[in-house]
Structures are given as structure tokens and as C-alpha cells.
């Protein structure tokens, strides 16, 4: 049972204080400027947030748009992980595989995911498939690189213990390399989930999409409804925070040994 300590409460309240300060500055600035096309008031933003199921700007509700984005992110994220983890294990474990794959990985890795958009549309047409493809391209590399690093960082002595006890190559990978690399792979998943969110919003902002938080933000911008943009951004931030909390909880639950071995 984890109890929240006084120190935790103090730290949370420090963070909360800064958020409150930013909100106060925002609100004062909005009241001074008095122009919804430059800075909407907090009241206007929260009015949107407080009715998440109501249609926004004559279209889908905030929740519906969020669910569309979330679905795309999860689909892309899991596809990316399904490809990146096995390839990363192979490239990290085998020098032969590294010789084959490393150059192509290093060339493709710096390409911004959104640069794939024209190809995505050409191959998959406008819609969810293209967006998911962009997310896969974005989420793939952080998982891959961390998996490779994780495998290479597995202590040599652990594999020697396995070899000493006559573990086969497959058993060495299954019982030593994978569990030993898992904390670093987990970090890769955490980073790539963040990247996936950036990709979904950017991809949905491109012409041709008709749903999702990125679409909503761009649509609201075209109609000059900046309070909807603010609400959309807060939702994105909150989902990111939730995901990160889950990843951090997973780390302390499953990898509490890390750094203490």
C-alpha cells in the first residue's frame, strides 16, 4: 500500500502553484486584451471543456474527436512496438543483423514523420490509414533505438551465467536479454507514446481529415474559435499526463530493481 507522504503533497502543491500562476497571468492578459481572436478567456475555454459531449462548432463533440485520435494513436503505437521490439532485439543481439540494418535505420531515423505524408496519402489515401502510418513512422524509431540500446546494455556477466548453465541462444535471449533490456525498452515505449501524440495531432491538421483533436484545432482556427483550440490543447496535455503516469507506475511496479542491482 503506497501512502502519499507530506513531501509528495508539498511537491504537488509546488507544481500546482505554477499552473495557477500561469492561469492567472493568462486570464489577466485575456481581460486586458479583450480580443477572442488573440487570447480567449479561461471562462470561454472551460465552457468548452465542461461540455465534452456537446457538439463543437456544429460537428462532433470533444470526446468523440478525442476518441478518434486515441484510437489512431493506440493503433499506430502498438503496430510500431510490434515491429520495433523484435527488430531491435535482433539488431542488438546479433552483430551480423546490425551490419545489415544499422545503415538504413540511421538514414530513416532523422526523417520527420510528417514528411511521409505525401507518400502516406499516395499509398493509403486520405483518412485513418494515412494518419496511423505517420504515427507508426514516428513511434517506431524511439522504441527500436531503445530496444537496441537495452539489449547492448545487458550485463555481459548475466549472459555468461546463462552460458555457464548451458542455456541455448534462444534461452539466453528469452531469460536474460529480454528481461534485462526491458526497463530500457519501456523507456522507449514511453518516449514513443509521446511522439505518437505529436504525430496524430500534426497528421490530423493536414487537409483532408475530418475528425480528431488535430482536425478540431485546425477547424477551430479557420473559424477563429480560439477557445476551442485552447480546450483541445488542454485535452491533449491531460492525455499525455495520464499516459506518462501509467508508464511511470509500470516502471516502479515492474522494474524496481533497476539501478539497484
Amino acid at each position, binding site marked *: 500500500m503506497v501512502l502519499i507522504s507530506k513531501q509528495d503533497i508539498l511537491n504537488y502543491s509546488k507544481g500546482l502553484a505554477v499552473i495557477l500562476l500561469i492561469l492567472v497571468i493568462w486570464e489577466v492578459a485575456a481581460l486586458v486584451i479583450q480580443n477572442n481572436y488573440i487570447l480567449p478567456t479561461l471562462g470561454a475555454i472551460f465552457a468548452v471543456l465542461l461540455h465534452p459531449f456537446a457538439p463543437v462548432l456544429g460537428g462532433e463533440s470533444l470526446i468523440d474527436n478525442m476518441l478518434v485520435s486515441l484510437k489512431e494513436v493506440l493503433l499506430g503505437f502498438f503496430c510500431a512496438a510490434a515491429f520495433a521490439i523484435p527488430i531491435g532485439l535482433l539488431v542488438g543481439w546479433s552483430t551480423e543483423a546490425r551490419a545489415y540494418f544499422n545503415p538504413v535505420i540511421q538514414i530513416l531515423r532523422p526523417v520527420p514523420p510528417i514528411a511521409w505524408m505525401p507518400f502516406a496519402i499516395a499509398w493509403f489515401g486520405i483518412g485513418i490509414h494515412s494518419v496511423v502510418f505517420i504515427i507508426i513512422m514516428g513511434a517506431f524509431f524511439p522504441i527500436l533505438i531503445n530496444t537496441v540500446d537495452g539489449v547492448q546494455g545487458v*550485463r555481459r*556477466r*548475466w549472459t*555468461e*551465467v*546463462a*552460458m*555457464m*548453465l*548451458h*542455456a*541455448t541462444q534462444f*534461452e539466453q535471449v528469452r*531469460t*536474460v536479454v529480454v*528481461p*534485462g533490456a*526491458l526497463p530500457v525498452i519501456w523507456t522507449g515505449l514511453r518516449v514513443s507514446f509521446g511522439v505518437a501524440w505529436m504525430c496524430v495531432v500534426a497528421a490530423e491538421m493536414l487537409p483532408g481529415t475530418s475528425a480528431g483533436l488535430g482536425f478540431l484545432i485546425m477547424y477551430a482556427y479557420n473559424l477563429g474559435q480560439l477557445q476551442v483550440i485552447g480546450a483541445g490543447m488542454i485535452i491533449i496535455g491531460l492525455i499525455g499526463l495520464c499516459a506518462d503516469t501509467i508508464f511511470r507506475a509500470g516502471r516502479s511496479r515492474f*522494474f*524496481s*530493481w*533497476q539501478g*539497484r*542491482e
Partner: protein
Amino acid sequence: MMEPVLTLNTITKTFRDSEQNCPALAGVSIDAYPREILCIMGPSGCGKSTLLRIIDGLEQADAGTIHIAPGTMAGSLSVAMVFQDPALFPWLSIYENIVYGLRLAAQKVPEDEVNERATALLALTHLDSFAHSYPHQLSGGMQQRVAVARALAVTPQVLLMDEPFSALDTFTRRELEDEVIRIRDGMKTTIIMVTHNPEEAVYIADRIIIFSERPAVVSEVLPVDLPHPRDPAGPEFIRIRELVTRRVLGKPDP
């Protein structure tokens, strides 16, 4: 005359890289007999650890032969090794660490026997109450006990120990040295230990093997004919300890 459980015949090893050749072992021959404790001593970097790694198959010798009596029962290996650091798997509990080798395809030990062996080893190494703890919850000495239990789980004919207690304090070290003697008596295992500590060698060994400077050959074999438990303050103990120290340092007798 008893048959040796391990016979090393002129083992030679040179480490080669693109820059230079570095000869480590220049024809090492050793016989180890059942239930014997051998300590290998010698100057730093003379190839003692390399020899253990060759016996265990982690390195290949360039020349020479190794003959080891095969394991006597199902799920047993001829040799197992304890390294200088415990190298426990931090994601496994103490119990799971100990039975790690028994669950590999090479051993194929049925699960009730796995349990039986683990229970016996937990008792032998005084770790009963820590079966479900994790390595980071244990002290260094206890972690090394787990490493010993993990190696013993595969009931090796020969247990290799590469400076296993060098990172431990004097008191923990003495406890574990006593434990090594108990293990030999209880499990009838032959033990070959590399150590830098002359007192440790004289305390536990039946024979002390002294290596020369690199590339190593066996320069001398000193039998230790003292009854257990040995008294490190006894005159004969001190005499042998000083003799061993002089031989390792290559100093003449006074």
C-alpha cells in the same frame, strides 16, 4: 589411487588481437580429485581466471586437453562457476535465481525435483527465509551465497570459484569460507577456487597451486595437511601462509 575428477593437460592460451599477442597460459597441467578443495594463487593477471573460464567453456584453449568426469545424475552439469560478483538476475526472486539452471532445456529437471533441490540449497546456504526476496534486498554476502546455491543447483562435479569472496568484509568472508568446506563435505563436490588471499587459501584448501608470472605454468603445488577447523593463529598455519605468500611474490626462503 583415486581417479581424478578433472584432468587438465598442458592447457595453452594466447589472447590475440590486431595489435599484439598476449600469452596467458603456457601449458598448465592440474589433476583434481573427488571432494578436493584446490586453491589457485599467483601474481595478478597471470591467467588464473582464464583457466577457470576455459574449464567452464566460456573461453577456448589453444592447445591441451580437459577431461572432466560426466555428471552423475539427470539435470546435473560437470562444472559450474561462481564469479567474483554474484551476477544474480535482479528481476528474479532468490528462489527463481537458484533454480534458474534447472529450468533450462539442457537440464530438464521435473518441477517437484526443482523444488526439492531448491529447498535443500536454501537450507544449506541459510537463505530459507529469503526465498521470495529479490537480490537488491540482500547484502553482498547473502547475494554471493545465492550465487553459490545457483551454481550448486545443477549438482556439478566441479565447482569453480573465481575470487568469490574478494568483495566481502573479513567476517562475512570467514562465514562463507566455512560454508565452502561444509558444501564440500555435504555435497561431495570438488572445488577449485582462485583467490588472492593467502590466509583464505590456507584456511580452506587441501592443496594450493601456485602459478608463475604470465604466461602461467604451475610453479609449485603445496599440500595443506591441517585438520579442519583450522586455526589461523596456529604456528603451522602461519608458516604455510608465509610460505605461500613468498612463493606468490617469488621471494626466496629466509
